[in-house]
């Protein structure tokens, strides 16, 4: 690991950046606390292999297990009820079987008194009856037991709505990726845009993969979390890209490896601190926010974790792979501004 102080390989007197430099004298003073440069790029191949492995594993799991689509996307009925005493899911399943329902899933939700019943659309019933399934389930449970069953919430999603939401979700995700790529290409440069999108893709696929492997429910709130992950990971990637761009323009000596290492080292503190504050609130949400918001919190915790890693390794790695160089980031000189004209 190279431990160079910044002034060793960085020439800080760049005319291209002159406007922002207000305190030239101070810049030339010997630094007191040099930034410790970590040779991130030394491990770039290992990092790339790990990322690739994770993405492939996620893709395989998504292919085989698929996602545990929640009610929002599959359509169907969900009822959450509270019993006065601890309930026995086995007994509830039997009651529902007796009432003639198919394909139901019964599970505890938060406590042993709190039970969640999920049911796919019933083939034996018509559309109107399916829409009233929630009411019938509660009635069935009330008649089967003498215990007091009270309704906490019930949801019914028709088949058309579910399909639409899934399509909209996918479309939204793609639109987000496309728009973001455009913006970065416009504000930075195409290679950065490519790096950012690869990083986002990496984060989204791995987060989805973990949901698939763990068989966690994927509902609308998790989709929202995933889009928030895109936003967050992007934020991180842009901060790093911004510094890489700045250093490419400012630092005269050093190859792209060194410039990227320098940039990553400089932003490392910020990357870790921001991830930490975000994770702090997410864990607060995970432990205290209740069952309904847990999936959302998990999605974001994973996404922020993966996103932090990807902003260091994935985006920068793509830049190296694309041979990013000073020329890519030269500030364009306006054509014809100073050159003499050639007239026939």
């Amino acid at each position, binding site marked *: 690991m190279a431990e160079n102080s910044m002034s060793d390989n960085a020439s800080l007197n760049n005319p291209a950046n002159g406007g922002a430099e*207000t*305190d030239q004298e101070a810049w030339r003073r010997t630094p007191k606390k040099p930034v410790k440069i970590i040779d991130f790029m030394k491990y770039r191949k290992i990092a790339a292999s790990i990322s690739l492995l994770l993405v492939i594993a996620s893709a395989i799991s998504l292919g085989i297990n698929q996602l545990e689509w929640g009610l929002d996307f599959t359509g169907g009925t969900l009822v959450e009820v509270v019993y006065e005493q601890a309930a026995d899911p086995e007994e509830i399943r039997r009651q529902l079987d007796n009432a003639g329902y198919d394909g139901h899933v019964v599970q505890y939700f938060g406590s042993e008194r709190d039970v969640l019943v999920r049911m796919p659309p019933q083939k034996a019933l018509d559309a109107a009856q399916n*829409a009233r399934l929630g009411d019938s389930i509660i009635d069935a449970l009330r008649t089967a037991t003498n215990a007091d069953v009270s309704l906490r919430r019930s949801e019914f*999603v028709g088949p058309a709505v579910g399909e639409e939401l899934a399509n909209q979700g996918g479309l939204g995700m793609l639109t987000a990726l496309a728009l973001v790529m455009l913006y970065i290409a416009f504000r930075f440069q195409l290679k950065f845009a490519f790096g950012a999108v690869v990083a986002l893709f990496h984060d989204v696929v791995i987060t989805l993969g973990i949901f698939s492997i763990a068989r966690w429910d994927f509902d609308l709130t998790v989709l929202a979390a995933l889009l*928030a992950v895109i936003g967050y990971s992007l*934020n991180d990637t842009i*901060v790093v890209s911004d510094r890489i761009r700045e250093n490419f323009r400012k630092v005269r000596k050093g190859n792209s490896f060194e410039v990227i290492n320098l940039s990553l080292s400089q932003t490392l503190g910020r990357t870790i601190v921001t991830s930490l504050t975000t994770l702090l609130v997410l864990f*607060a949400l995970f432990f205290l926010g209740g069952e309904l918001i847990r999936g959302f919190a998990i999605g974001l915790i994973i996404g922020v974790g993966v996103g932090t890693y990807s902003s260091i390794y994935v985006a920068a790695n793509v830049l190296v792979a694309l041979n990013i160089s000073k020329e890519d980031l030269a500030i364009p000189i306006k054509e014809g501004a100073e050159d003499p004209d050639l007239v026939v």
Partner: protein
Amino acid sequence: MINKYPIWKNLIVVGALALGLIYAMPNIYPPDYALQVSGESGGVEVTERTLRTVKKSLDDAGLSHFNPEIIDGKAQIRLPDDDTQIKALAVVERAVHDLPGDYVVAMNTAPTTPDWLANLSAEPMKYGLDLRGGVHFLLEVNTAKVISDRIDTLETDVKRKLREGKLRYKTVSSPAPRVLKAEFTSEDVRDEARTLLASQYREFEMLSVDDGLPAITMTLTSAMVDEIEDFAISQNIQTTRNRVNELGVSEPLVQRLGRNRIVVDLPGVQDPAIAKNILGKVATLEFRMEAQPNAPRSTTLGFDYEGRTANLERKIVVRGDRVIDAKVGFDPETSLPQVNITLDSEGGELMHRATRNNIGRRLGVVFIETKTRDSYQMIDGVEVKIQKPYVEKRVISLATVQAALGVQFRITGLQAGEARDLALLLRAGALAAEMFIAEERTVGASLGQENIELGAISVTVGLGLVLLFMLVYFKVFGIAANIALVANLVLLIAVMSSIGATLTLPGIAGIVLTVGMAVDANVLIFSRIREEIANGMSPQGAINAGFERAFVTIFDANLTTLIVAVILYSIGTGPVKGFAITLSIGILTSMFTAIMGTRAIINLIYGGRNVKKLAI
């Protein structure tokens, strides 16, 4: 480098914060539990007398109450707690039951915003159904059926027009949705028919074709399709609103969503089954001739007509499902309001047959509705409320037939208000387009309350952790960031309250996330300042450079996140939209507080003097 903000910048920061505090403030006053009494239909008015009855019933039952008032034609009375509210509901329902007219009593919450805030139109945030409890429906209107019904009507109509024009057609049929095809034996007849039909129907795009037989294909224009669909949906919305009023919900929401859906939000409703029963009811119409004075009793029926009895014939001329449209218009000659009624062709035929020999007699329109009535019965010595459905039939119009009526006719001699009400009733009673439930979500009140509490705890703990971390990590600068973070939360709440955004559970999650991410801007700035100091820059120079250089990064990073939030808003439904809204507003407010707000504080602490060392 002196790092002093000009006065106007400081004023902006202070001003924004002051406004934020004012508009966020209504949220700290918890609302009162209350009951709301309103008339079930427009005719029943809530008066001081109603209010006195309500007060007296509560006094008699020994339930404490305060601040009775009449707001927008509804009586409202506040109660000390939720327990009293439930008891009071039963008491008040019983009391207004004995009053003439039908009243609806609903539980609601009344804001306790002090007058000076209310005068600035500062209001507390609205809570979504997942926080208040209630039922949400997404109803889908079968517009395809509406269009195909219209095509069927037009088919009969076109055939009749051709017959009347003595133009021989081979067939008139509908080979595809929205399309009619008429086949003829010769091209001459076809061309003549096309001229005739084109003059009569502006709703079609016509095309002469020749596949075997000379023919015309007539396709409904997309403008016409939109018009028919819009009409069907607004009619269903109207019907749904009428039903919802019956449910006794204090702030219901009935709104069109997209092309063919209607959102119905019923806060506070706990039993989705009852809501569905009431929403599912349809009103109908019947047109009947007024009975002749000497008609035998067995052939007549008496109906209520504005308090009197109107005797109409038993025989129905036309039913409401034949009504295509009923609109308020103006008589071109007298410019008095009138109601224009359009029937389908079969209805027109029936109407014509019934009226051509009855000019001078009166035609009545009967409005039929299924309602529920509360009654009270003594069962085992206890008075019990019983809800019974009953059918209400009343005459809403009795007008003299001036000519043989057909597909289109009008009811004249009305006052402006009367015309509007009548058109509304006619539309509500005409067979509404078929509707089914596409989505339903019910949240129990206890779960809603729990969600609010869990959300509040999450925000508090999350905020506390971040504040602590920033203080330890950035010291004095951490204090500045913390003040900015709290200010950001205040501004976020103020903006949400003043634009009337709805707070949902995912919205709270968005606030929590904003708390965690908003400090990022400050972290970027402070890290940069530390770096510049490490590079040997003077403290004042480092502060300035840190803010200046981090700005572009913060701007780019936040703008891209904002793009994502906007996409999330556009694809999301209810609760997810709530998340997108808080996230977007949070991004905007945090940029202001983290950049301008923190700078103002830092300038206040360090600016304009000789600083040797920064506590960062």
